[in-house]
């Protein structure tokens, strides 16, 4: 029996979107509305970050610096691109939008554990975001998103202290979200929702939230130290006064390497939901995937030194970090293998979310394997700070996180808005993003291997062909990314046609109406079975039926 059927006993209850005053949005404590607030904000920041990326790609079309006039402005561009994309898009994107919206629904709860803190985290994020925009408009910052000392503390003439405060504040938004998720998963699960009945989406987000709580404060303190050193010159990172600049790198990467998993684990979360649904098979190796998420979260803390192979860190420490880095490949590969095994003998439907998800698997695999190359000491010394690294982490962050975010948005859009979107346009956008992405970033692997360093606004003429390819790819990617924005927004003009479960998916969130009501469930929830109980034959019939309903 589905919850939506029960809903009609006493008339249709109000859904979470029905109250439309501005105050009702700005003061909401409904996890779904906070998710929407985040969705709008991260979209804005993604657009700004993307625009800056576009300018950089334009600059790099020719070997000479011509579009942005000075190297200084180019330095500010890549720094702002990194800061905005990482702190204001990649870190919050999936957890704060989809995680916020879905975790309570998936575990059968009426809300997150701390609804007010959830809203607070959005406000903190917005304060940080406004400061970020302020920096962007009034001077920028040129240290790179990594704020490496001693450049940031002694030489840079830009708004380092303001940026430090911004990152500090935004970090708290992340900590609050993480805290909320961890506690929610522990205490808010519905009766019968045991740990091994949790959707893998929740497991991945739990692992993410643990990293947010454990790692983000270290970033906060290291960024405070940078601010302090810059303001008072007391020698914290100045070798002349007994400080050590490399200590900053240690503290910074103690956060920032796990932060990579803050960005990509939620991507795994989305993919683990979509693959079984569109392959119509139960996920292969549920427990392995669940534990792999936690393993990635833990291993992620043991490998930060692989960013510092050429920094002056001890070679022995470097070797240890290098070996440990290979460990991360094990749980990551477990996930990829299990998704692939889920596809095996499935009756696969290539709908938009599935296309994005399959794109994710391919791109993430390339990103992950090149990550292994970078984890080996010897190769890293050769390609360190070249475009090889740039291509690698874009494969993880854009090819991984952003693809997964788009996959998730397309998958749950009917749930979030109550509407379907034009499938053909969706498929086209997935295709364009995949092609555009590869055309943008694959040449950068070659560029890096040939020795083009990152973070320069001029380059040697022999690199031009590959750079032009990359810029051309970026424009295709841009079209592919703008399309969903247009057709998803246009879909809001239609009547609500999605129905509770347009994909024939399992999971508690699909048993309530679309869009869900304010308190999610009308009756207390009791969970009696595992997730992903897809049977190919039965599901296919159901799926065909749903498709039929759609077209009529």
């Amino acid at each position, binding site marked *: 029996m589905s919850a939506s059927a029960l809903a009609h006993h006493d008339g249709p209850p109000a859904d979470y979107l029905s109250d439309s005053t501005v105050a009702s949005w700005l003061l909401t404590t409904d996890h779904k509305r906070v998710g929407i607030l985040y969705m709008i904000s991260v979209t804005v920041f993604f657009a700004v970050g993307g625009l800056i990326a576009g300018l950089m790609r334009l600059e790099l079309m020719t070997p000479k610096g011509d579009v942005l006039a000075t190297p200084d402005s180019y330095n500010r561009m890549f720094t702002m691109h990194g800061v905005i994309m990482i702190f204001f898009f990649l870190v919050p994107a999936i957890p704060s939008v989809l995680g916020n919206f879905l975790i309570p629904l998936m575990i059968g709860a009426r809300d997150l554990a701390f609804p007010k803190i959830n809203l607070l985290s959005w406000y903190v994020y917005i304060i940080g975001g406004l400061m970020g925009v302020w920096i962007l408009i009034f001077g920028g910052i040129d240290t790179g998103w990594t704020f490496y000392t001693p450049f940031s503390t002694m030489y840079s003439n830009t708004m380092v202290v303001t940026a430090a405060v911004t990152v500090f504040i935004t970090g708290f938004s992340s900590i609050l979200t993480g805290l909320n998720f961890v506690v929610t998963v522990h205490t808010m699960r519905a009766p019968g929702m045991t740990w091994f009945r949790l959707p893998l989406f929740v497991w991945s987000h739990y692992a993410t939230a643990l990293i947010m709580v454990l790692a983000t404060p270290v970033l906060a303190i290291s960024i405070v130290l940078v601010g302090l050193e810059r303001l008072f010159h007391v020698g914290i990172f100045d070798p002349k006064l007994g400080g050590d600049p490399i200590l900053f790198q240690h503290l910074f990467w103690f956060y920032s390497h796990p932060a990579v998993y803050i960005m990509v684990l939620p991507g795994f979360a989305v993919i683990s939901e979509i693959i079984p649904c569109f392959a119509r098979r139960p996920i292969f190796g549920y427990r392995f995937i669940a534990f792999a998420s936690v393993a990635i979260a833990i291993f992620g*803390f043991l490998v930060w030194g692989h960013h510092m192979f050429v920094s002056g860190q*001890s070679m022995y420490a470097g070797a240890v970090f290098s070996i440990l880095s290979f460990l991360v490949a094990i749980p990551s590969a477990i996930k990829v293998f299990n998704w692939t095994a889920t596809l095996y003998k499935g009756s696969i439907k290539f709908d938009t979310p599935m296309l994005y998800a399959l794109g994710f698997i391919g791109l993430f695999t390339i990103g992950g394997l090149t990550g292994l190359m970078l984890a080996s000491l010897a190769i890293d010394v050769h390609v360190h700070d070249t475009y090889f690294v740039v291509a690698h982490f874009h494969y993880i962050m854009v090819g991984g996180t952003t693809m997964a975010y788009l996959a998730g948005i397309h998958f749950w859009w009917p749930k979030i808005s109550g509407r379907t979107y034009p499938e053909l346009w969706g498929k086209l956008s997935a295709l364009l993003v995949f092609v555009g992405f590869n055309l943008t970033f694959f040449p950068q692997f070659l560029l890096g291997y040939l020795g083009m360093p990152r973070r320069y606004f001029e380059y040697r003429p022999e690199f031009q062909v590959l750079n032009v390819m990359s810029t051309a790819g970026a424009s295709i990617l841009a079209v592919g990314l703008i399309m969903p924005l247009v057709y998803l927004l246009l879909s809001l003009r239609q009547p609500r046609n999605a129905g509770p479960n347009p994909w024939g998916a399992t999971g508690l969130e699909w048993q309530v109406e679309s869009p869900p009501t304010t308190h999610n469930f009308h009756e207390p929830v009791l969970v009696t079975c595992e997730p992903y109980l897809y049977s190919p034959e039965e599901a296919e019939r159901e799926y065909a039926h749903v498709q039929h309903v759609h077209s009529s």
Partner: protein
Amino acid sequence: MAHTSHSHSQTNLAQTTDAHAQAHHVIEVRTYVLIYIALMLFLAATVAASFMPLGAFHLPVAMTIALIKAVLIVLFFMHVYYSAPLTWITAVGSLLWVGLLLAFLLSDYLARGWLHILGK
């Protein structure tokens, strides 16, 4: 997955009686005072130890005493002794993570000079 409204309260009851007992454990005043006296003694011990000729063992001794004090506060003042395993894991886990940071940091700094090459 199915929804029913019936067996809800029973299941919950079974789940939470344990938590209930843990949540409302009232510790005797006597216990608090004893812990307080122990803390005072360890405080005196830590100062006394700083005057003793312990050489290289000053830091380990001081840290051990501090750790014992912290454990006493965490176990009794913060009620962890009477709390669910999760609270234990949380408390121990945070300490472990600090250890992790320090261990890997020191693995770099202690091994810096081993190669006898400047800067390696």
